[in-house]
């Protein structure tokens, strides 16, 4: 079982690392989509099937579309990706150092905890049970999440439309 986990982890990390190292933005976005699919594979391995399908539906099916549209709508006429500006190498080095520091601290914290004593039976997550918990215990949060998504949708539309003058609607 852990062999599968290691393979999924390595593939996801590799895809994520490559995504941030590539120059063309579209390739970066598509590599990151692979990383999100890897995360969905992890959810499948852990037994949370509903979450895996939700992850694919939301991230690979929807957020990737928004990202790709934004990439296409904000292209510079000459070339793409970021061109090297002065001080970029220093910024990259500083960023990598901070990330390595955070990784070190987190790794130390994880490895300092002694592993659990007995193997735990894998929990099963039925869709009915998940729905029951959502509606029973977290109904307020569910409604708030719905309101948040609606507000975000309207806000994103307003922001992206900007104050461009609206021509009259085309005749049906």
């Amino acid at each position: 079982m852990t062999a599968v986990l290691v393979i999924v982890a390595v593939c996801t990390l590799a895809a994520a690392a490559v995504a941030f190292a590539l120059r063309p933005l579209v390739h970066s976005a598509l590599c990151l989509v692979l990383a999100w699919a890897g995360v969905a594979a992890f959810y499948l391995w852990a037994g949370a099937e509903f979450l895996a399908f939700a992850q694919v539906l939301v991230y690979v099916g929807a957020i990737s579309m928004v990202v790709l549209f934004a990439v296409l709508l904000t292209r510079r006429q000459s070339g793409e990706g970021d061109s090297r500006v002065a001080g970029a190498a220093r910024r990259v080095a500083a960023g990598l150092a901070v990330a390595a520091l955070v990784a070190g601290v987190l790794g130390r914290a994880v490895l300092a905890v002694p592993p659990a004593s007995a193997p735990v039976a894998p929990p099963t997550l039925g869709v009915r049970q998940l729905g029951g918990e959502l509606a029973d215990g977290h109904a307020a949060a569910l409604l708030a999440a719905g309101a948040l998504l609606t507000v975000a949708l309207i806000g994103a539309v307003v922001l992206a439309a900007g104050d461009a003058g609206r021509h009259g609607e085309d005749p049906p």
Partner: protein
Amino acid sequence: MSALTLCLLFSSALFAVGLAGALCRGNAILVLLGIELMLNAANLNFIAFWRYGPPGAGATGPVFVLFAIAVAAAEAAVGLALVIAVYRHQRNIRLAEAVRLKG
């Protein structure tokens, strides 16, 4: 090294990769993608603890992750709309140039 430790190391590494991406690249969209990756890493943590945690915790881990996915989706949409709005002003999306408060 138990499977739980492996899962936690995986999510820490993913978080670090997302952080590196958000800090190193000067492109607004890539910074947003780095933040999305960090959110995903945190979700991995939730599921790892749900899988290997104490029995009888119900579906708390997956419920958290569901809400986190929803919030991340909303944040990605609004963030990318902001990027488009910034692009309208300065014709590129280099974060280093978005330093003026009034465009």
